[in-house]
């Protein structure tokens, strides 16, 4: 067991973890943060997307033991902070979530577009979301939601 201390959604946590524990199991099983999902556990589906030290990562490919001192933000923390409330409202308005299993990961990835690519085109949004698998929606409503949020934020910034 390896001792780690890190910040998760702004709270400091200390735990002992098995070397093989990946970040999603750590969040879900050790911290009860069930908003992050495991869809494949081999790095393809993006359901496990969370933010570590400001960048999005696949939680299933990161070992918790490597995160001593890290700062982790999950969908729960991102939602509570209000950072993407506008994006989430667009998701609701367009029904950009059906079963919702992909949605936390989608929102984390979309938040990354909002932060780093404020000028993203529709094609670039589709490209950027392409690491996140959604079986239900056909993606269009998700792309629409991100595009609308970007446009709204650009408009507000211009004012």
């Amino acid at each position, binding site marked *: 067991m390896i001792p780690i201390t890190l910040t998760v959604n702004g709270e400091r946590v200390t735990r002992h973890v098995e070397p093989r524990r990946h970040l999603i199991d750590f969040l879900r099983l050790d911290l009860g943060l069930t*908003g992050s999902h495991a*869809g494949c*556990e081999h790095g393809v589906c993006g359901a496990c997307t969370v933010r570590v030290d400001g960048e999005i990562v696949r939680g299933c490919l990161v070992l918790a033991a490597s995160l001593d001192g890290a700062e982790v933000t999950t969908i729960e923390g991102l*939602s509570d902070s209000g950072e993407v409330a506008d994006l989430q409202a667009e998701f609701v308005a367009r029904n950009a979530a059906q079963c*919702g299993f992909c949605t936390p990961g989608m929102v984390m990835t979309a938040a990354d577009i909002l932060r780093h690519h404020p000028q993203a085109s529709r094609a670039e949004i*589709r490209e950027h*979301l392409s690491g996140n698998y959604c079986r*239900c929606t056909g993606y269009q409503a998700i*792309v629409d939601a991100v595009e609308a949020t970007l446009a709204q934020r650009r408009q507000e910034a211009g004012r």
Partner: protein
Amino acid sequence: MNEITPASIGLSREDLPNSYIGRSVPRPNVPKLVQGRATYTDDVVLPRMLHAAFLRSPHAHARILSIETAAALATPGVVRVFTGRDIAEVCDPWVAVLDHLKGMKSAPQHPLPLERATWQGEPVVAVVAESRAAAEDGVAALRVEWEPLPAQTDMETALAPGAVVIHPELGDNLVFTRTATAGDVEAAFAAAHKVVEATFVTARHTGVTLEPRSIIADYNRADGTLTVHQSTQAPHMMQGVFAKHLRLRESDVRVICKDVGGSFGIKVHVYPDEVAVAAMARIMGRPVKFVADRFESFTSDIHARDHRIKARIAVDAQGKILGFDVDDLTGIGPYSVYPRTSAIEGNQVVNLCGGPYDFVNYRCTTTVVLQNKAPTCQYRAVGHPIATAVTEGLVDMAAEALGMDPIAFRRINLIRDDAYPRTSPSGMRFEGLSHHASLDKLLEMVPVEKIRADQAAQRARGVYRGLGFASFIELTNPSPFMYGIGGARISAQDGATVRMDPDGSITIASGVTEQGQGTEAILAQIAAHGVGVPVERVKVITGDTQNTPYGGGTWACRGAGIGGEAALQSALALRAQILEVAGAMLQAKPETLDVVMGEVVDRASGTPRLSLAELGRIVYFRGDTLPRDLPRELVQTRHFITKEYPFAFTNGIQACWAEVDVETGMVKVLEHWCVEDCGRVINPLLVDEQVRGGIVQGLGGALYEHCVYDAEGNLLTTTLADYLVPMSAEMPDIHVGHVETPTRESLLGAKGAGEAGTAGAPAALMNAINDALRPLGARVTEQPFTPARILKALGRI
């Protein structure tokens, strides 16, 4: 139907603020989904819960010689190991046949096999431990001695002499065969102006729900009850299955299904590993959780659509279709899947080929055989994408052979919109369809002339683009003719209970379930509309056999049509009851009152008279002030089942605009359109999103998705890196239009909408690709349309 008409309850008007039917109301469930606050089965944690992992057969077919468990039991955290024999002590096997599918046969299946494994990935031994990780450690420590047996993997040889008979007691590998005939096929084809034929292949693929199959079973020895938390589409069906096979009373089993992370038909079947979990909980008297990992999903979720179809079409010189002649062969794995059976998909191909068209002569045979691969069963749009690909593929080829435009050819042959009711050559009864109106609507949306001009211009530059069409029909709202008459305890009826609480809020409990398609949202809309309250005042309960009226769940697109009608009827009954009480309180005739936005109002003037909260206060706390014999049950239940038609057919048409790179064989879908007629649209936003999601699933099957087996029956596609699914960058924008032909079977008039996209998309794409390839003399009919297959058709490899 009584004197209530759709107009009398405001179904066709939006003049009342609570006229929600037909409105794009956002789903109340979505905020929790976007904030990560949903509760999927794996999120549920129970006291003393253990975790199961399975050793799965590495062989397609092998005898189990011995199972050595000592090392597994010595693994830290491992609590117990179960073999097939241990499970069989408390659990009876099943045989998945339906009586109305004449001559159907299958073998008894145990949760864990007793002697032989018959597909790679079949669960064989279970390890139960304190954590999933420890259970997997235990599995790794198991030692099983196998005697590999020859595997029967090729469906083409399944009935040939020398085939490996997978279950010797059945005599051969034939599960089911059926031929439908109408008219005189031989004569029609002999006399035809042209006969066109082709062989189509639809690839074995699977649902890939992002949330894998998940279950927690908890047996309480004190009261003898089994509580199962399960990601399922049919809680009541599963309640019956667990009770029957674990020898419990149905009333002692409760199935709870909270949020479900996608289902698409994958989660409506009985899986041996899940029944084993319930059996282990029964034996241990503790909760046991099992969540499939992605490898397990690929090897043990049902597969589907493994068909080879030889088909031909006969046409006369004017372009009229004379007949279809279709021979379908499908391999379904080693067992028919319980309890819906694996013969339904082939049977649907027989029912649906040629469906949109007016013709007389028909012959279609399906032959359903066993093989040593994962079992197949019903997956979204069961059989429809296959029948549509065959029908629409042949239709385009016939038009080409006649030198006709594919739209003009369809115009001549689609069943006229005024020709209903009508029975198809395969015996399907259509109440009312709108093929021509749908085609008209589609042509308003698709800029055909512009596209054809672009196509010609691009061709001149060596860029090959094509436009493809596909008309389709879809079977929804099934009656007991689908499963019930075959002896399966699968309810075609559904119920809803609507109640008003003291604060004037409404709660509806329904037997249909939510998997993301928006069932709960439409139930809330219907209840709000029917009672007369703001939709925010409605709470919905689904997915709990102990707290909802008995029902079939959600499959075959029955949520809106069946569950929605039960909701409407019970909501109207509750409104009538509210008005009776209000009439007594206000000294007014109930007919002079109405309920609008949570207020009892004067019907003529709209003047508010009494809030529902005040009415609730009086009824629940001061009932002494009401007339002594006034009925005051502010709770009403109604059930609904279709009666006139075995199924409510819907219809529609899709168009696909795609580009084929003739150097690489890559296909890019540029744009896609769908017009569909699902009867009354309750929530256009949700229907459009169902259609889009369904189309992308259909495009996935046509372009990428394939469960690839080698000749020995080893599954080669067991990760998401090998089995490709559509991602956002590859998918086009999709335009959706509607024609509404409500069913007269119900007040609501809704038919199903969830499978139409998947039914038509592969055919539309196939026709688009072949339209693109036509100048090069190439054609593809074998899905998925991979670069290799396209380059092969072009003669480049």
